[in-house]
């Protein structure tokens, strides 16, 4: 379903992603874990056609994401790490626009929007401007929107960031259900290692733009002689705190600025 070969992304002279190769099979729930600035979001951005790789090849559902952007885009849905809803429109309008962008058939449109807004408990606020929502509510709306078109492949970039435990559980339950019932492939990143442990069928650790380990949660624990995934993770990536070098909006500028200051 997903295939990366020797993928490199450089911002100026900074290498954010350094020759990554990995493969995710259909129906897998794959977690990409790593410290801040390790290259997780950059990898997802390349996979979702938002960034062009410096070199290497990325295939989604057999489509080259650089050369066959449109076909690649049809295969996936994404819940972004940072906000991407239009706050000057209502929740319903955001959902509707998404459905139109993804060609959800008219006959299913209303039912699906209702189902998902009910799932994230926003149905009674469907006609409120998103501007008036709390952070958690906006996040829930993003999740509902990402699931709206029932993609074959779903990217979740730190989807539970800033959510309460209830909503987190609800989200993972639903994702599990989609993965089971529709054989949907899930590719996600998170900083909550217990989420990865509970929901991922396979996990990769990434650090300094390189994949340092890959396997099931149990395998990774065994390899490092750890009791939990968190322990394994810390053993492999170290305990030092990282600065996030790649800013979400202005990656290139941010890099240059941080370099200039050094």
């Amino acid at each position, binding site marked *: 379903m997903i295939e990366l070969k020797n993928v490199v992304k450089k911002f100026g002279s900074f290498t954010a992603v350094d020759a990554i190769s990995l493969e995710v099979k259909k129906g897998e729930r794959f977690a990409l874990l790593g410290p801040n600035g390790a290259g997780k979001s950059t990898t997802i951005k390349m996979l979702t056609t*938002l960034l062009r790789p410096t070199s290497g090849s990325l295939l989604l559902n057999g489509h080259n994401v650089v050369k066959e952007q449109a076909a690649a885009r049809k295969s996936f849905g994404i819940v972004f790490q940072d906000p991407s809803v239009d706050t000057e429109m209502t929740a319903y309008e955001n959902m509707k626009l998404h459905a139109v962008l993804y060609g959800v058939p008219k006959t299913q449109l209303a039912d699906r929007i209702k189902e998902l807004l009910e799932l994230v408990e926003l149905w009674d606020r469907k006609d409120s401007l998103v501007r008036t929502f709390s952070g958690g509510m906006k996040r829930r709306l993003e999740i509902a*929107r990402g699931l709206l078109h029932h993609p074959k492949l779903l990217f979740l970039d730190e989807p539970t960031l800033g959510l309460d435990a209830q909503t987190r559980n609800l989200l993972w339950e639903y994702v599990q259900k989609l993965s089971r019932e529709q054989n949907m492939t899930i590719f996600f990143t998170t900083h909550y290692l217990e989420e990865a442990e509970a929901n991922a069928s396979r996990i990769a650790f990434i650090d300094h733009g390189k994949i340092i380990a890959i396997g099931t949660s149990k395998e990774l624990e065994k390899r490092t002689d750890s009791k939990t995934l968190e322990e394994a993770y810390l053993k492999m990536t170290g305990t030092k705190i990282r600065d996030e070098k790649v800013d979400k909006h202005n990656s290139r500028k941010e890099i240059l600025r941080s370099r200039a200051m050094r």
Partner: protein
Amino acid sequence: MRVIYYLWLRQLTRFTRSKSRIIGSVGQPLLFLLALGYGLGSVYKKAGDGNYLQFLVPGIMVQTALFAAMFFGAMIIFDRQFGFLKETMVAPVSRLKIMLGGALGGATTATMQGALVLFISFFLGFRPYNWAMVPIAVLILFYLAVAIACFSSGIGSVVQDMQGFQAINQFLVFPLYFLSGALYPLDNVPTWLRIVAEVNPISYSVDAMRWALINQTKFGITRDLIVMTITLIVCVVFGAQRFRRIEA
């Protein structure tokens, strides 16, 4: 088509929800109309050219639509900053459609603002030479607004922040407007200014608007429309090219 329609609708919805934007968009052109129309009216009359307000209104309508349509590019920058742009960038829809939907929406709201200024000018004493030509004038304005909205989406795709965008407005759009003959006749100006006006595409929109509203034209409506069409094509290609290459 559905995608274009909904992205068009988004622009319209957001515009009609923002009262401050509607008032703000008409405020500046009205100030121009009042200050220049009444301030220079007597001088203009003494020079033997007749009623300045009549002459000025088509130019001010172009001003309104021009800057309102440029605002669409700013919307792209806002969408980038607030994250919504990503939502459209990963959608399985051609970027051309996404840009066109938005640009047509931006052009529609810009035209509405221009039409509103025209409506207000009726109360200030402006009279078109033929009322039946008013819809044609609005169409011409829309034609210009589409080109400018596409142009501004190209700018909004390249420039990353509002400061940069404002700089383009200050150093490119304002000069184009002031040197277009929107505010003064181009008959007795120095040669350099006449040449600048003749290579300035905005001059032809102003001229076409005058043709429609007060039956005056310097270049002739055929030449006006040819230049406007070429401008439109160049702007659509420029906007589409730049918009397609956005990385987020």
